[in-house]
């Protein structure tokens, strides 16, 4: 979540000698990240990223509290000028008021509070209010709407205002919606509700509020409004979230409510609101404020099995004393009762749940930058016997040195017999491929004419569907060449088989623009070996000669036939092919004796007999 905090607004709560730049630096290292420090005229504005677990920092006051804990660690003075939570709240609250009949589903509304403000003069906001809203990127509308926005930004608690006189029979029924009910929100959008959304129905049966997300248009404050219902609640968060996501209606209020807001913030916000109404609209609140609390506000404590000091130090790798740890936690409003019991401030009770959470608080305020840096000692893990990575690197290196260029293509393709995505981003990426070849054909067509010849390769998984299970991820190698001489491409595969010490039977597919050979590497890697067995170099030199033999189109058979002629035939290489004749270079060799011409004579005779 992002929030803009103007420096002048922050300093209404915070007294410090730190400059905006210094505050930015310190906060970023120990608290929320101040991504940018903007300047608008003479005013500095902090652009802050707040993580989802720290919804308490989505406000000016929340950031001020953080500054009080963090700035002194950097040698700056910092204290709160005023604490909105300690101000004496002179509200008389009651579970029943005579100006509003409320029926409430307790499971979905944790706290329901409202004040009736009479004789409101809707009009322009005072300059200071307009300016503050402008600094945080909000346009001033009228004093009533501006107050709601101001309160949410200052205290992190969303607020709504109803035109009291538009609520039929001054009756509210807070309930879950039925599927298909319709409601038009303030932005004039009409929603058909999915059902189970938190809504308010008035005495005439019409829906007047999409709770926690946006108010209804039919009960909105306008220029004729005289009496306002200032409305501050907290709701069960998953309902808010579900509705907001289902309707794709993401408002600032929804983003806060769905993270679960503390009920303790409700009355201080209502109190500030009543004061603001009186200041800026002349409206006066009814002496009796309606406040229904449906959850417990008991102080939460965290009990530790391992003593706090020992636990924190074991995670930080340093030796802090109990007093140092307690001091840091106190600066964040925690009360450390003992090594075993820590009291959690209500602003943090929804985020601090386990001892590791306390470690984080101590560590960040102490400063990650102040912790030492070391590599771990201890035993090394047992290495894997899997050689896939070794062979993958070896094959890539060989191919690149033989002139092949490596590609990386998306595993997602537009057409395939493989698994389909449920939520593709575009039709181009809809299926998980079961073959690499279509991707390479595409690259070939896109690159034709850019260079004389393409020699491409890629090693990647293909995803073969398996019923009721994860797909089998099979590592494939693909070789693609726009040189249409099959023997060349085959030669590379044969060279690879020598590198890997395995036999590969390549299947070369011929396309109009390219030759493609796709190989499943899995069985090859399982058998591949870099161990070579040394064959002692013979002291007897071989005899080599070229012969011509007739050829019928089966090279392997021809070679086998020649080998069968004599054990002295050690090697047969193809020199040339001309029409239906092959020129072969035969190496005669014996490990045990020097072959003489006499030994070769009978073999040569047999070979000519083959012809």
């Amino acid at each position: 979540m992002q929030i803009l905090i103007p420096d002048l607004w922050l300093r209404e709560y915070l007294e410090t000698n730190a400059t905006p730049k210094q505050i930015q630096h310190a906060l970023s290292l120990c608290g929320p990240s101040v991504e940018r420090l903007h300047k608008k005229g003479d005013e500095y504005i902090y652009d802050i990223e707040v993580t989802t677990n720290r919804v308490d920092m989505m406000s000016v006051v929340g950031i001020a509290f953080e500054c009080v804990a963090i700035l002194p660690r950097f040698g700056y003075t910092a204290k709160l000028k005023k604490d909105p939570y300690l101000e004496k709240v002179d509200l008389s609250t009651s579970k029943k008021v005579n100006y509003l009949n409320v029926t409430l589903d307790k499971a979905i509304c944790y706290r329901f509070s409202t004040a009736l403000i009479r004789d409101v003069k809707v009009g322009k906001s005072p300059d200071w209010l307009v300016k503050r809203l402008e600094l945080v990127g909000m346009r001033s509308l009228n004093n009533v709407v501006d107050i709601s926005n101001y309160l949410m930004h200052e205290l992190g608690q969303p607020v709504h205002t109803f035109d009291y006189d538009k609520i039929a029979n001054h009756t509210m029924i807070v309930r879950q919606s039925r599927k298909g009910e319709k409601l038009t929100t303030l932005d004039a959008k009409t929603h058909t509700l999915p059902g189970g959304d938190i809504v308010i129905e008035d005495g005439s049966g019409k829906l007047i509020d999409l709770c926690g997300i946006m108010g209804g248009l039919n009960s909105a404050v306008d220029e004729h409004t005289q009496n306002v219902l200032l409305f501050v609640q907290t709701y069960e968060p998953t309902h808010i979230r579900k509705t907001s996501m289902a309707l794709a209606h993401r408002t600032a209020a929804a983003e806060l409510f769905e993270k679960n807001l503390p009920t303790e913030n409700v009355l201080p916000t209502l109190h500030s609101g009543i004061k603001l109404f009186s200041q800026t609209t002349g409206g006066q609140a009814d002496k009796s404020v309606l406040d229904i609390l449906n959850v417990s506000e008991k102080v939460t404590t965290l009990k530790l099995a391992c003593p706090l000091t020992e636990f924190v130090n074991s995670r930080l790798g340093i030796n802090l004393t109990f007093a140092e740890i307690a001091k840091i936690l106190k600066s964040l409003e925690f009360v450390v009762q003992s090594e075993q019991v820590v009291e959690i401030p209500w602003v943090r009770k929804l985020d601090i749940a386990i001892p590791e959470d306390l470690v984080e608080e101590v560590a960040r305020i102490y400063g990650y930058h102040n912790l030492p840096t070391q590599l771990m000692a201890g035993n090394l893990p047992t290495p894997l016997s899997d050689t896939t990575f070794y062979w993958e690197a070896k094959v890539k290196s060989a191919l690149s040195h033989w002139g092949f260029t490596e590609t990386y293509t998306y595993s997602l393709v537009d057409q395939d017999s493989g698994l389909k995505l449920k939520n593709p981003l575009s039709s181009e990426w809809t299926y998980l491929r079961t073959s690499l070849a279509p991707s390479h054909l595409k690259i070939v067509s896109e690159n034709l004419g850019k260079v004389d010849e393409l020699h491409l390769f890629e090693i990647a998984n293909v995803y073969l569907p398996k019923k009721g299970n994860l797909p089998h991820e099979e590592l494939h190698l693909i070789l693609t060449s726009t040189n249409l001489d099959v023997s060349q491409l085959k030669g590379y595969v044969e060279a690879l088989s020598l590198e890997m010490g395995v036999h590969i039977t390549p299947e070369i597919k011929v396309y109009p623009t390219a030759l493609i050979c796709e190989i499943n590497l899995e069985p090859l890697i399982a058998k591949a070996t870099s161990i070579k067995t040394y064959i002692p170099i013979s002291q007897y030199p071989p005899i080599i000669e070229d012969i011509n033999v007739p050829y019928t189109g089966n090279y392997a058979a021809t070679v086998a036939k020649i080998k069968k002629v004599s054990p002295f035939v050690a090697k047969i290489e193809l020199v040339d092919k001309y029409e239906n004749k092959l020129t072969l270079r035969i190496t005669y060799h014996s490990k045990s004796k020097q072959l003489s011409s006499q030994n070769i004579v009978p073999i040569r005779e047999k070979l000519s007999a083959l012809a």
Partner: protein
Amino acid sequence: MRQKLQNLKNEALAQIIQATDPAELKNLRYHYLGKKGALAEIAKDLSRLEPEAKKDIGQLFNDTKSAISEALGRKLEIRNSKLEIDTSLPGLKPPLGHLHPVTHAIEEISSIFEKIGFVRVRYPEADWDWYAFEALNMHRNHPARDDIETFFIDAPEDKKMGKIVLTPQTSNSQVREMERVKIPPIRMVNIAKCYRRQSDVSHTVMFHQFEGLVIDTDINITHLKGTIDHFVKQFFGPKRQSRLRPYHFQFTEPSFEVDVTCDICLGKGCKLCKEGWLELGGAGMVHPNVLRAGKIDPSKYTGFAFGWGVERTYMMKSGLKIDDLRLLYANDIRFLNQF
């Protein structure tokens, strides 16, 4: 006679191939082709043959003679050309292939971690929801899941494991590695393809991440700092520095964002960076719930983890200057041939 010629040829060719200096070649020429050489001797006998045989053997004689003289000529030619070398002319390069920048990055990253005892592993890229989310302390309705735009496979859900997802991050390897190793120590690095529903200048639907996981007795934040610092210095160079900032992830507690100093200003702040630092990615101490999901006792063992984008990390190396990540997967040969 036929045999004699055949043997003479074999013998001569073998000797020529093995000859190493010009004097030797001269001797061979004299020996075989000279006026009193071996072939001249045979020629004397030729005239005594029957006309029929004369024609046949004569042919073989000529073949033998030309094969020997050709072989000698070739060998001498090689030697002579060596004497008239012009080194100012450009060389003839062998065909040059190219490895993809992602491969360069992966090889560099894995070798840095392997040197400090990390084991490289490989886990599914299409995995169960359980490993990708649930076991990582991210329950079905958790808002944290929204930030991660995940692709789902159109296949029936497994009762225990949930849906099949294309892993949006490499963290599914964490609990899988705990299950494999069972009893720590664990030092793992998993580099794999990840997928997210995003495509723009800085996002591609498919990308790569590398995930580090260390679990042992007495692992603390200083070890995480040490490991990250080691990586940053090795990968980016000794002048670059790293820092941790507080952050939040569901599967780590505490959680950090890791920054590296900008390669242009080295941390002072300049036009190209955010206040002198560039974001590398997330890290943290493994959440006890994640250890429990991997059947490891969090009261006995602690650990840390980090997971960063391979492409992003590689882009942050100095001098690379790739302004659109999608170029990496467009496979334009004029792009690929630059690496």
